[in-house]
């Protein structure tokens, strides 16, 4: 019986969390379109998410592009298909690795800091203080982060695409002795708009999920330093899992629809 009780309790806790998250999301989205808006905070979040994530995302993309070129060359050499290297690099970067790896890196950087900041504000009663000062915490804290996540991740991923292709180009030209202009030509040859667009759609979705998880776990954190620590961990883990599962769903949509 105790076993069944434990299963039941876990299941109920799971349903509670789903319900709470749904209400939180609905509330947050609703406040995104209702004034007042805090432009100053929005700009600060955009800079924090967009500009300060550039080094992390850029380095990730650079090395990923380089590895892709090396790996695909050594594999394709087995059946004399070395010419496909440039195409493999650009398609992998734009469709999958740019958004997914960029998203995961940003989840670690931004999701964690959002959860820690909002969580600390929760346990030190700063969120209650906002309410008593006639300021809606959703509008002041959650909305700027969600909108900044949604808009800045596509920009970051676009940069990651370019840097990744450049990484592949470096290896292709200087290590694998491709002709530079031929490498670039075959990069463009099979690239379609939908490849880039699908990656950017993914990025926007991931940005929203990262900010949502950071805000949600921070907002409901409790119990002092330990609670904030747990909120931070949960924000990063849940954002990462949601990114990977949402990635499948969006890929499915583009593959079957496009």
């Amino acid at each position, binding site marked *: 019986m105790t076993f069944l009780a434990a299963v039941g309790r876990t299941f109920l806790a799971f349903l509670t969390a789903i319900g709470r998250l749904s209400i939180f999301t609905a509330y947050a989205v609703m406040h995104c379109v209702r004034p007042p808006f805090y432009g100053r905070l929005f700009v600060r979040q955009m800079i924090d998410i967009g500009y300060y994530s550039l080094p992390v995302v850029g380095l990730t993309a650079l090395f990923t592009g380089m590895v892709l070129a090396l790996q695909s060359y050594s594999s394709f050499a087995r059946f004399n298909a070395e010419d496909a290297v440039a195409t493999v690099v650009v398609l992998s970067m734009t469709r999958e690795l740019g958004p997914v790896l960029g998203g995961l890196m940003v989840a670690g950087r931004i999701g964690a800091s959002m959860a820690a900041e909002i969580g600390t*504000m929760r346990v*030190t*009663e*700063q969120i209650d*203080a906002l*309410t*008593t*000062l*006639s*300021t809606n915490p959703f509008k002041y804290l959650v909305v700027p982060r969600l909108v900044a996540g949604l808009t800045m991740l596509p920009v970051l991923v676009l940069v990651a695409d370019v840097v990744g292709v450049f990484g592949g180009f470096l290896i292709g030209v200087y290590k694998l002795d491709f002709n530079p202009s031929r490498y670039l030509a075959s990069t463009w040859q099979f690239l379609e708009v939908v490849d880039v667009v699908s990656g950017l759609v993914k990025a926007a979705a991931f940005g929203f999920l990262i900010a949502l998880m950071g805000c949600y776990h921070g907002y409901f954190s409790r119990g002092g330093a330990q609670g904030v620590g747990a909120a931070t961990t949960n924000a990063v883990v849940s954002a990462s899992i949601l990114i990977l599962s949402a990635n499948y769903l969006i890929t499915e949509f583009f593959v079957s629809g496009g």
Partner: protein
Amino acid sequence: MAGTAKIALSGVRKAFGSKVVLDGIDLEVEAGESLVVIGGSGTGKSVMLKSVLGLLAPDSGSIRIDGQETVRVSGSGRVAMMKRFGMLFQGAALFDSLPVWENVAFGLIQGLRVPRERARDIAIEKLAAVGLDEAVASLSPAELSGGMQKRVALARAIAADPEIIFFDEPTTGLDPIMGDVINDLIVDCTRQLGATTLSITHDMASARKIADRIAMIYHGRIIWSGPADRIDDSGNDYVDQFVHGRAEGPIRMAVRDS
């Protein structure tokens, strides 16, 4: 008389899960009066205060401000109500991302839409009222001592000239002298504004100093209330035990909180 009181609670109940925290609170605060609610840890003081503020929704009962029901008021009605409130939080709850003056002016800028320049002047005026000079205004809250943070928080609570001010353990964590300074400031500031105040504390020195009337809460009920100068001959064993801080008596302290 019912209906004329500034704040009137009747039959307010609140439970978290199976734990009943407020078990039918009846309490009235007259306009211009300073009521202090005393009681031990975990007796429901904070929950009561947060219910009046609207940060928590009671399960049943009514809370009226100027005869107007406030339970289940939300959205713009709630915001309008908050503009009449000031609140001093136990841990000061200053926004650590903003300088001192912006903390004080926060409710003016965000809630009341006062222009920044004008709000800054008011903030500096209010800081002077709590004995802080202009040099403090541009510091960050983290650079201040606990007593100075409490002063800033007090300045923030009175910045918008509220009708009703709430104090949550105003002297907790301060040395006795600084505690007395804060008590004096509370008395001065609220007299000047002519505000109605509702405070909770377990510090008897503070209660004696700032209260016109004292009420004692125990197990989620108000068990005694009377003028502040009657606290020593209340004729109530529970009050006597609390006032004199004795371990022996009718009140049994729960070792565990929940």
